[in-house]
């Protein structure tokens, strides 16, 4: 139970691009990411947009485009898996809760998409499982017939949560699940992630909101410009941040509105 379910060690990703004909260009997107997800825990991956958080999620699930070059190790249950092998686990043992409602198929009713998730998760009665999963999140049967554009942002988010959790995943990677939600909905979503962890799932919460991460996570991983720079204990994010050892992490904490809004020099 306490061994790491998912382990990412020194993950580097380059994208090879061609510009103006055959001139080749390599973009270094990730330059050294480390992440460990343990069953029963929420680990938060915190960083600004462009720091490579979503890319890490897609890489772990083997969903990168063919021009991506990967170095480093991704281990599932201690076993090193290549991208193709990881992709086979996507949606089964490992699930991505994507960032935006744009990940729903716009041309297919919600009910059909949730049923498909239930089917892939191996449910004996996908129709029933889909309806139950939505009902648990306060979405009645009338939602089943709607198309994604007929849902509000909050409803679409709940549909995605329902789909992501249908298969009782062992690893859930939630990519910015709270962006743009009203505060009550944010608390609900984070609470749901915490409950999943309490039930034995290893939850990776990707977010740029440090405060939310500190509230819900067991461990906080800070990343910056494509690499992870620090792993901190949420309890250390208190007062003036004196318990935080890494200068960048401390600077982030002290720069929050309400913590002084200070601009540290030289970080």
């Amino acid at each position: 139970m306490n061994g790491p379910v998912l382990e990412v060690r020194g993950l580097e990703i380059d994208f090879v691009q061609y510009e103006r004909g055959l001139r080749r260009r390599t973009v270094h997107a990730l330059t050294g990411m480390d992440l460990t997800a343990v069953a029963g825990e929420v680990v938060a991956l915190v960083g600004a947009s462009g720091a490579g958080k979503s890319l890490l999620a897609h890489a772990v699930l083997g969903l990168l485009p063919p021009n991506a070059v990967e170095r480093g190790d991704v281990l599932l249950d201690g076993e090193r898996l290549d991208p193709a092998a990881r992709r086979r686990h996507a949606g089964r043992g490992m699930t991505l809760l994507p960032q935006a409602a744009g990940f729903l198929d716009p041309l297919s009713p919600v009910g059909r998409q949730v049923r498909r998730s239930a089917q892939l998760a191996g449910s004996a009665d996908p129709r029933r499982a889909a309806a139950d999963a939505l009902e648990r999140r306060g979405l009645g049967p009338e939602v089943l017939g709607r198309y994604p554009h007929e849902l509000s942002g909050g409803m679409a988010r709940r549909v995605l949560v329902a789909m992501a959790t249908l298969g009782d995943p062992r690893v859930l990677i939630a990519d910015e699940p709270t962006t743009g939600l009203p505060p009550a909905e944010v608390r609900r979503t984070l609470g749901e992630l915490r409950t999943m962890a309490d039930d034995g799932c290893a939850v990776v919460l990707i977010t740029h909101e440090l405060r939310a991460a500190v509230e819900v996570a067991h461990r906080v991983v800070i990343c910056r410009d494509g690499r992870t720079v620090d792993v901190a204990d949420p309890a250390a994010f208190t007062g003036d941040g004196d318990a935080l050892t890494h200068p960048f992490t401390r600077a982030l904490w002290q720069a929050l509105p309400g913590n002084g809004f200070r601009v540290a020099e030289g970080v």
Partner: protein
Amino acid sequence: MLQAEGIWFRYARDRPWVLAGVDLGIAPGEVVGLCGPSGGGKSTLGRVLAGHLRPDRGLVTVDGVAPHSRRAPHPVQLVLQQPERAIDPRWRVRQALAATGAQLEGVDERLVHPSWLDRYPHEISGGELQRVNLARALLTRPRYLVADEISASLDAVTQARIWTLLLEHCREAGIGVLAISHDRPLLETVAGRVLDWTAVPFGSGQDG
């Protein structure tokens, strides 16, 4: 004074009202926060104030007159969340700033480092590009600035840095600011007063 009176706006005749009778006043040098969830019409109001959208009813005035000149930059400048969408990717930073018609010697070096001037937007970081974006708005010598989620995709350190510079410039030049964000602690830190935005209730205002 930037004054919006009885602003009504919808994106098409058969769409619901996004703004229904909005009144707002911002004094020179004042920083007003506008807080509320996404999808409520805050950004639409920002675009109406900056002249990007024409209201269906109501009037926006700056110091008593409705801005209309197409020859000079609009006295209300809008700065958006994503600078990469606001700056032409084929222009170097120097060119993007020069398009304001202002002298680049006047640019604050803490806002735009001189070494960035000959780079393309994708060659500097998102936080740096947002500083360029802000500098461009300030170069037009606006009377008012609408800052719509300008730091929502930046890390906390970069956020604090950009707001500190913005507030300093606006204080010096007496520029009034409308700060739009979903982040209440941020607005309480930067703004003198914070308004709670309530979206037009669904189904109301259809009479017009």
